[in-house]
């Protein structure tokens, strides 16, 4: 039931204090013709309404959430405690710099640590999400080429296993996309990459480890091929959780990078975030970074790089998310950061190893932080598709892995357990996966009917996409 349906005229509560300044009536032409449909509801009912909604959802606090490429790790509560400190919350973005030195120090320190982890030289906290970071990074690449009078570079190379946002961001930035196929080993096809490289290439976008959970062993050759044709290398940080403290994108030959603080650095994904997608770059790209960066030694101040591409978001990005990420890094420390990645990789390999007796792995070799199963065989044999196993998991209190991605694997399920799950949680999930496999063989109809224990049963995805209901109609 929607909150509007619970509304009763005259019921309600005062959230705002009485107005203590003279009221101003807007001009007739600016006035609303109809009252706003604001729900009128008591505090008690409001509280129950949101608790009910929370019970209907599944988050990291409810259970296992192995959504591949999303790094749904536990978000330590101490991060929130830090972000709740009044020194961070009771400030105004336009306050004089000398009164918010602590906030500036947070931004500066987070930048320093993240640059150390990725081996970049400077980083902006402005972008609000990963794709926003991609767009920002591509604008840096564009600004660089244009500053050199190099106007013929109109194409960005993206491998066919890339996240869908990569080609989309490239198109947004005005580039056309050249797709390079993956070889049978899941890695970039070097011969095809060499064919695509040329003086019309602005750059390459890549994740490493890639979307099938494998570390591309040819990475140095790949970035060199792009550099030698005059292009730049962009690192999509979606999968950084596999390699923190082990290898650094800057050492692999990347020039620009975005991070997803809401993945790798344990800030919340829930309710749309807010996310944070800092963009880092090597020194030669730093003059183009969006404003504002923090500089200074004793006294910190905001500076605008000389050839800045401009603002990517108002003020300083999602600042309180950066506070959470910094709290996470300080909690873990240098060794803890490395250990987090090691355990993420260990957990993924443990799960993959335990499952590969039954399930077919798309690439049967040691993986990084995630692995991809192909359920094509199971579908042929029993009729149970990846989506049926996914729905069956819901009935067992487990959020399904990413489905039907990457596109190069048929009937794909892509699982990323993350480092924050215990062996017991993994063992239980493995047990459920195996149980569902046998259910597919014995009673596939049960899987087609799943889920039956969730607040809503199987949704008509096709009907929803073909005839979407996009708005609520109020009674007149």
């Amino acid at each position: 039931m929607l909150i509007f349906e619970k509304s009763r005229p005259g019921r309600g509560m005062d959230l705002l204090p009485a107005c203590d300044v003279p009221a101003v009536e807007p001009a007739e032409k600016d006035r609303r013709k109809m009252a706003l449909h604001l729900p009128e509801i008591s505090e008690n009912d409001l509280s129950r309404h949101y608790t009910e909604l929370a019970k209907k959802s599944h988050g990291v606090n409810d259970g296992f959430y192995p959504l591949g490429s999303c790094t749904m790790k536990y978000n330590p509560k101490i991060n929130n405690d830090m972000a709740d400190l009044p020194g961070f919350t009771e400030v105004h973005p336009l306050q004089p710099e000398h009164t918010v030195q602590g906030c500036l120090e947070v931004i500066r320190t987070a930048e320093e640590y993240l640059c150390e982890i990725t081996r970049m030289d400077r980083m902006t906290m402005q972008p609000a999400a990963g794709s926003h970071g991609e767009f920002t990074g591509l604008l840096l690449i564009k600004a660089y080429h244009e500053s050199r009078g190099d106007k013929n570079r109109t194409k960005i190379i993206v491998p066919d296993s890339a996240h869908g946002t990569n080609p989309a961001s490239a198109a947004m930035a005005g580039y056309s996309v050249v797709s390079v196929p993956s070889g049978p080993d899941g890695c970039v096809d070097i011969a095809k990459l060499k064919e695509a490289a040329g003086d019309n290439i602005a750059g390459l976008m890549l994740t490493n480890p890639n979307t099938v959970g494998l570390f591309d062993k040819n990475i140095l050759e790949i970035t060199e091929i792009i550099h030698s044709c005059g292009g730049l290398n962009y690192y999509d940080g979606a999968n950084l959780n596999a390699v923190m403290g082990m290898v650094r994108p800057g050492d692999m030959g990347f020039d620009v990078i975005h991070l997803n603080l809401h993945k790798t650095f344990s800030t919340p994904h829930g309710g749309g975030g807010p996310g944070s997608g800092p963009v880092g770059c090597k020194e030669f790209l730093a003059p183009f970074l969006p404003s504002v960066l923090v500089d200074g030694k004793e006294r910190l101040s905001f500076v605008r790089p000389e050839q800045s591409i401009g603002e990517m978001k108002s003020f300083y990005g999602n600042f309180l998310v950066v506070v959470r990420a910094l709290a996470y890094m300080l909690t873990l420390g240098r060794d803890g950061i490395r250990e987090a990645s090691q355990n993420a990789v260990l957990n993924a390999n443990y799960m993959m190893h335990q499952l590969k007796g039954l399930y077919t792995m798309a690439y049967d070799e040691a993986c990084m932080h995630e692995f991809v199963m192909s359920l094509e065989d199971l579908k042929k044999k029993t009729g149970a598709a990846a989506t049926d196993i996914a729905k069956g998991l819901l009935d067992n209190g487990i959020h399904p892995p990413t489905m039907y991605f990457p596109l190069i694997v048929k009937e794909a399920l892509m699982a990323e357990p993350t480092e924050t799950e215990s062996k017991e949680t993994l063992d239980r999930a493995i047990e459920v996966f195996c149980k569902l496999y046998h259910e597919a063989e014995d009673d596939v109809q049960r899987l087609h009917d799943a889920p039956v224990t969730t607040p809503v049963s199987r949704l008509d995805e096709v009907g929803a996409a073909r005839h979407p209901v996009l708005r609520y109609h109020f009674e007149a």
Partner: protein
Amino acid sequence: MKLEQGVLYTKSHEWVKEEDGAFVIGLTDYAQSELGDLVFVNLPEEGDEITVGEPFADVESVKAVSDVYAPVSGVVSEVNEELLDAPERINESPYEAWFVKVKDVSEKEELLSAKEYEAFVESEKE
């Protein structure tokens, strides 16, 4: 897998038929069954130039968005706008649900007969 006699096929699963001096292009039955229920189609406009081997349209299922590749180079002379409102036609009758008609064809890729296409699909399945 249903095959239609009198049309030619591509390895990227489009069908082509010559009709009144134009090339009619659509998606094969195998393609629609692999994609699943289609919910959205993006078509070019009349007068657009399409290039052999390059995407000229895309189709969206609940799972993913996929490109549709041009088997010929030429100019789009007619667009089946009915598909925009009813993408399910492609699932229901793939060989009637044509996407575009193309004229002034300057180039075309090597097309397969029904028999060759069937063999190709079988070999891909393995």
